[in-house]
């Protein structure tokens, strides 16, 4: 029993970070119907950003995250303005964005490999290898901090969407883009901000990744496959679905990893996606974009 609870704890810790990674992705889809295949590549970019910041100034990756947030926000907003207005209104917009961001993912991966090389890296703050005891359970400190940071960011995101004026605009756009435009929401501005937020979340997730896992540029495919499975599973555009799906599946995959073998643990995410498609094609929390 103790062992089971221990696995649940470890799974939940990881699930929180997955939820943060998936949140940016699902917001982008919810607001703009953009499926951002390059999201994980930008997470890796965030990890490199934090890594080099840590290496050159010794700045703790958790503080590095606070630097990454605004930098990646601006980067995202600029990227959006540069690429997406051109394809907006094209038929099959979502499919188009999949291919477009697919190309972006390749470019980002290639450039990162070219400039930073393909070797494994990891920031090494003191808490990376520490752990503390909680009752009779053991909790790795780094994963605990990462979970805390994820929860703080997700709560901030939720509060922003629920209580700010811009947040209303974002939610209105998620519900019905056309109607939002009619009642006076500046959809272009909302989209730019949302893309910035999505990218900032990727940057922040990258900062956490930098000390949680060894990373290298080509790693992003594995993650994007997991994240995409998560957001389809939760229902595209549903923040709630993404968070619940992330934590639930992370726990299940922790069990698979513990009792069947670590090679099979990613299978949980893809397998769950296929099962959901068979049972409930619109995902756990419906087709309607909800917050």
């Amino acid at each position: 029993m103790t062992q089971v609870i221990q696995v649940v704890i470890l799974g939940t810790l990881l699930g929180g970070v997955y939820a943060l990674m998936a949140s940016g992705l699902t917001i982008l889809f919810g607001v703009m119907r953009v499926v951002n295949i390059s999201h994980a590549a930008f997470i890796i970019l965030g990890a490199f950003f934090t890594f080099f910041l840590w290496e050159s100034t010794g700045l703790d990756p958790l503080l590095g995250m606070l630097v990454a947030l605004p930098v990646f926000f601006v980067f995202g907003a600029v990227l959006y303005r540069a690429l997406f207005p051109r394809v907006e209104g094209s038929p099959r917009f979502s499919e188009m964005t999949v291919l477009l961001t697919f190309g972006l993912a390749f470019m980002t991966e290639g450039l990162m490999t070219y400039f930073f090389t393909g070797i494994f890296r990891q920031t090494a703050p003191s808490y990376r290898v520490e752990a503390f005891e909680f009752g009779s359970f053991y909790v790795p400190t780094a994963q605990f901090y990462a979970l805390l940071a994820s929860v703080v960011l997700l709560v901030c995101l939720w509060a922003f969407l629920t209580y700010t004026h811009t947040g209303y605009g974002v939610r209105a756009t998620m519900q019905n883009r056309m109607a939002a435009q009619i009642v006076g929401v500046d959809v272009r501005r909302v989209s730019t901000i949302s893309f910035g937020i999505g990218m900032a979340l990727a940057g922040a997730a990258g900062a956490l990744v930098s000390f949680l896992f060894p990373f290298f540029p080509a790693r992003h495919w594995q993650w994007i496959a997991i994240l995409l499975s998560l957001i389809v599973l939760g229902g595209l555009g549903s923040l709630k679905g993404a968070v619940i799906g992330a934590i639930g599946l992370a726990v299940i995959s922790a069990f698979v990893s513990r009792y069947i073998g670590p090679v099979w643990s990613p299978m949980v995410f893809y397998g769950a996606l296929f099962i959901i498609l068979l049972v409930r094609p619109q995902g756990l929390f419906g087709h309607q974009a909800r917050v």
Partner: protein
Amino acid sequence: MTDKPLDAVTETALMSAEPIVVDPEVERRRRRVRITVALVILVLVALLPFYRSLGAYNYVLQIGVSIFAWIALASSWNILGGYTGYISLGHNVFYGVGAYVSALLLIHLGISPFLSAALAGLVALALGLLAGLVTFRTQGPSFIISTIALLFIVLVWFDAWSLTGGSNGLSLPLPPFSREWLRVPFYYAMLLAALAAVFLGHRVQHSKFGLALRAIGADQVKAEVAGINTRLFKVLAFALSAFIPGVVGAIFAYSISYVRPTIFFLIAVGARMVLMTIIGGRGTVAGPVIGATLIILLNEASLTYFGATELNLVITGALLVIVLLFFPAGIVGSLRERGKLPAFLDWD
């Protein structure tokens, strides 16, 4: 479902998309040019292996094998992605499964992959049918994502499965040809596969089946209302587009004499089929052929001059972005829109 209403409605649905040239005399002349050019190219390509004094003989033949393989793969992808607009990013699953089926048959039963290639294709087709039944429960971006998930399921599975040698893969017995002529059988086998794929694409383009697929691509709801069983047609298209990749995988595996998950089940492999078809022109017969030829030659050139594979990735990605932003119809499509498509590229 009778034949007549399908025709009438889908023709209407396509009317806006493709204004059809009417002058029969012009049409006849274009057709003659097209057939002549195609035959000349085909004869030249078929005679190439007889030109033994060619410098770097085996290298040139190997590039030929590559080009034919990718023509076959891109043309097959086009049946689903080009006509219905459903983008599969995991199509290399069928390519890889075909390779493994033939490799296992060769290792355990000694059957030559040249013979078992058709069987590999059928296994890929059956798998495509199954995958289609599940993935087509969704549409749009969810469909694309489910094809990516399919690819990763197969990757994780083959990485761990002892029958397929796990991530180390399997080594195949060497082909029993003299070293001097080693590439020649593969050259012709792959040429045959490419021709079959192009022919299949052409048949689909000119069949009621293809018309239904294009109707689905133009407007799925209208197609459904017109009485097309869209789900059935999409699943059939998926299965059909899986067949030749299986065959190509079988031949290709034999030509490199080993199989490993990272050769076949990388997302970049599936992405290439998409890129080639989009650059050449989706939903056209000539598009994938031109796209595949261009990309392989470009790839060889960039390998020779830059060497670094990461720059290849950047070029691949940048090309995809540029084509999507500026020429979403691809080479053939863009030329046709401007009325400048030369007769020898107009295979539709």
